């Protein structure tokens, strides 16, 4: 089973207790594949609070109710804005496809216009809703798109981690490389540094909290900091429900107009 594509960097992870391979024998690719292949359940409901902070220290807070479900080849997701008031019930739906080269389908419903519109963005390098996450950061990147190298092993927050460097095989990729700290045995990436085209540190992702929900490890608190622009995005998940049985029909244009 392939793990559902998790949008908001919610790499969830199940401790696969039956892993018996000696850590020493793991290749960098295997480590990344373990992260990629972690089971995180088939659907998820959660309240997302997104806090954007700019370099002047000003904050903007958006509250969103989100539903995600894995349909096998397609991952569907629908989000309803709760706050601020002027965008309440604005909804956003994405259908992401496993098929290589196929762009996501995206729709937005603007209640003030009473219309659902398709939007498309050029590339995965676009930032998601003014945050510091690109669409690409939020999705699962297939392990074979990069060349991975184990740099070293390190301890972060009292957890033993592999430090893995990933360099894209595609030269046009927006990051020259990324470096990920992955907790051994849990296969959670707790920290990730993103380097820009000029090989300068661009962003740092840190996972501040993960919780065991229904037997799945779900990351509920992450921060992405753009080191060059001094802009931060904190994503905080609450009321997380996994495998709650979200109806398949939830993910339609009609449902978008209904509001929460």
């Amino acid at each position, binding site marked *: 089973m392939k793990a559902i594509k998790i949008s908001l960097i919610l790499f969830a992870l199940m401790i696969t207790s039956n892993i018996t391979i000696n850590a020493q024998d793991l290749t960098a690719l295997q480590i990344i594949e373990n992260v990629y292949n972690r089971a995180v359940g088939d659907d998820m409901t959660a309240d997302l609070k997104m806090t*954007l902070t*700019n370099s002047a220290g000003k904050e903007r807070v958006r509250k969103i109710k989100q539903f995600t479900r894995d349909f096998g080849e397609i991952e569907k997701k629908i989000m309803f804005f709760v706050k601020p008031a*002027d965008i309440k019930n604005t909804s956003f739906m994405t259908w992401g496809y496993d098929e290589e080269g196929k762009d996501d389908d995206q729709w937005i419903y*603007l209640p*003030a216009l009473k219309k659902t519109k398709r*939007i498309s*963005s*050029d590339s995965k390098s676009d*930032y998601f809703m003014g945050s510091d996450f690109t669409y690409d950061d939020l999705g699962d990147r297939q392990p074979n798109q990069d060349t991975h190298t184990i740099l070293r092993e390190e301890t972060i927050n009292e957890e033993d981690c592999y430090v893995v460097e990933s360099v894209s095989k595609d030269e046009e990729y927006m990051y020259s490389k990324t470096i990920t700290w992955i907790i051994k045995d849990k296969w959670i990436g707790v920290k990730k540094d993103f380097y820009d085209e000029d090989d300068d540190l661009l962003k740092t992702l840190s996972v501040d909290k993960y919780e065991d929900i229904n037997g799945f490890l779900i990351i509920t608190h992450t921060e992405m900091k753009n080191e060059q622009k001094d802009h931060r995005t904190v994503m905080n998940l609450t009321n997380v429900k996994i495998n709650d049985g979200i109806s398949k029909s939830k993910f339609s244009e009609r449902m978008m107009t209904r509001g929460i």
Partner: protein
Amino acid sequence: MENMLNKLLKMPYIVLAISIIISALFFMKMKENSRMETNLDKYMPADHPAFIYSDKAEEWFNIKDGIIIAIENPEGVYNKETLDIVKALTKRFQKMPEIEKADVTSLYTADNIVGTEDGMDVKAFYKKTPKTDEKLDELSQKVKSNEMVFGKLVSEDETVTIIIAAINDDVFTQEFYTHILETADEFKTDKIKLHVAGRPIIEGTMALLGPADMKKMVPIVLFVIILVLYLTLRSVKSTILTILVVVFSTLWAFGLMAVVNIPIYAVSTMIPVMLIAIGVADGIHLYSHLQLFMMKNPLAKKKEAVMDMIKYMWLPVIMTSVTTAVGFISLLTSQVYPIKYFGIFTAFGVLAAMLFSLTLIPAGIMIFGLPKVKAKKEKEENHKFAFNFAEKVIKYRVASMIVTVVIVVLSIVGIGKVWINSSFLDKFEKDSDIVLTDQFINSHFGGTSTINLVLDSDDKGAFKNPDVLKAVDKMQQAVVGNLELAGNSFTLTDYVKRMNKVMNADDEAFNTIPDNSDLIAQYLLLYEMSGDPENLWKVVDYDYAKLNVNFQIKSDNSKAINSVLAEIEKSKDDFEKLGVKMNYAGSGYKALIFTDLILEGQIMSLILSLIIVIILLGIMFKNIKLGFIGAVPIIITAVISFGIMGWADIALNTTTALLSSIAIGIGIDYAVHFIEQYKINSVTGDKLLTAQNTMAHSGRAILFNAVVVIAGFLVLLFSVFPPNRELGTLVSLNMFISFVGTVTIMLNLLNKTNIYFKNKKGE
């Protein structure tokens, strides 16, 4: 004082040695520690409210000056060749360490918000350069139908497209400037031309051209001054010593600047100008006295001659220098630091020149001997001429007074026409490359200069309110519609209108601000989701409580900027009703305020120093009336030179405003020497003879002084840099007016008031 100076005569070598050693030390310190301050922001008083606000706004909205690179292809820009250049050049600029990637805007980086039947797209205009005619045509249509780009990044005739690279003020260096020009040059082809413009380029060119031209001109100026000085003093020794006074005092002024670690500002380059004009005066007066003494006493020994010179001249030399120095120190009232420094260090230089005149010149004479008095006959002729001249001046007093009054009245009318110009572009020749490029870009686009109107509300979300945005839109339309100079405006309204149109099937009727504030908020969310939200933060702040409206103007001339400001201000009441305050930001606006400040400071200090001079002269001559009479040359010089500027349409700017300081320095010199001589000569008891003798002595020295400096500065008329030409003209003019004013009006006033003669009667 006189005794002390006489004692120094016994050790001339020590005086010379000490002078040289201290000057050498200052010179070494200068070499080690002097640096030019080229960042114009450093010139502005940081605590002035307008600057504080502007600086804050620049940070909120990332307001920076842009370098504009125009790519011109007469056959149109929609072909592979041109588009490849746009792409390659954009990438090159993005990679430059001085430029932030997000600060480069071109057709290659621009977002295209387009509407389709079932939605909205925010896409790049192109990523890979289109090759087929069909694709190129499609691109052309995309641009044409997007009013956020058409006429802004691509000219309406489709032959020019621009790349804008915004940079911070502090990254601009000579190397960077050359690098930009070279990079642009690299992409030139037979067909495709590249033009570089924008405020940083203009500032950069000015920073290069001005000093480079000065470097060429200064040696010639000095040569001419030395030559004319020699022709008037008729002695190599005297000429060298007089020039040494100027050179040493300049070294001391700049040396002290280096010691106390103050950088050289653009206005500091005026210090040598002042010191040349003022510094040679003391030397000339001293030698002039010496020559006259020797004509009367041809057999006198050198020590005798020097002692006589010191006896009669030390007081006027000190009086003139101290008064002049105080005049310059009055510039401390200015709010602009470079001007304060200019005042202090010029004052220090003037005092140094005084010191050298009183020590070095006598020491020099002691060491190298008296200058030979040649052509005695000619001197006597000069004498006769001076006598006749003085007689005529007094005879035609009424006529000369009337002429003066007429000129002064005309000048005052002229002063009314004086205008302040903070423009950089106006400093270049009308047919120079930089001006032509600017005109070229202005004729194809909205304008190369920018004014940022910053709207400020206490209300969070104010700029999602349709009423407010409609008022902004109305104001934008009024300014751009009513003023030809204002080519473009750009702010949040343009995004909202574009999205409203696009979301309504590209219907032009929806190119408006919607009435529903939720809809505006949702559009903006939509834009953030699909576009680059960074672009939004250039026009509105995070809380939607502050808005930055960009106006593009086709001139950086103060008149143009003021007319745009006046048009914007018409909406003030509308905004006030909505609880929105208006402020301005950006370098163009700051330059405007800055020039006003300089002028205001200059006028204040001129008035202040005039008062101080009147009081000081009154005390020195123990007669307040003489204080007023002594101030006459200053007043006349200042009034007439400003008047001429008005009539000749020479705008006031930082340099020309400072030149009025010369009026003080020179005016005092002339007045004090003249009055002092007049007083000494008044012992004869004969009013006419007193006037005549004074004319033959001081009048002669003043004439020499004026001729020397005028001749030197007239050389600048051949400069290729217009501000340097203005400088030459105005310095010469000031010298000339001071001279004429002193030997005519002041003489008449002295004569008419019976000053020293009345005293005699009273005794």
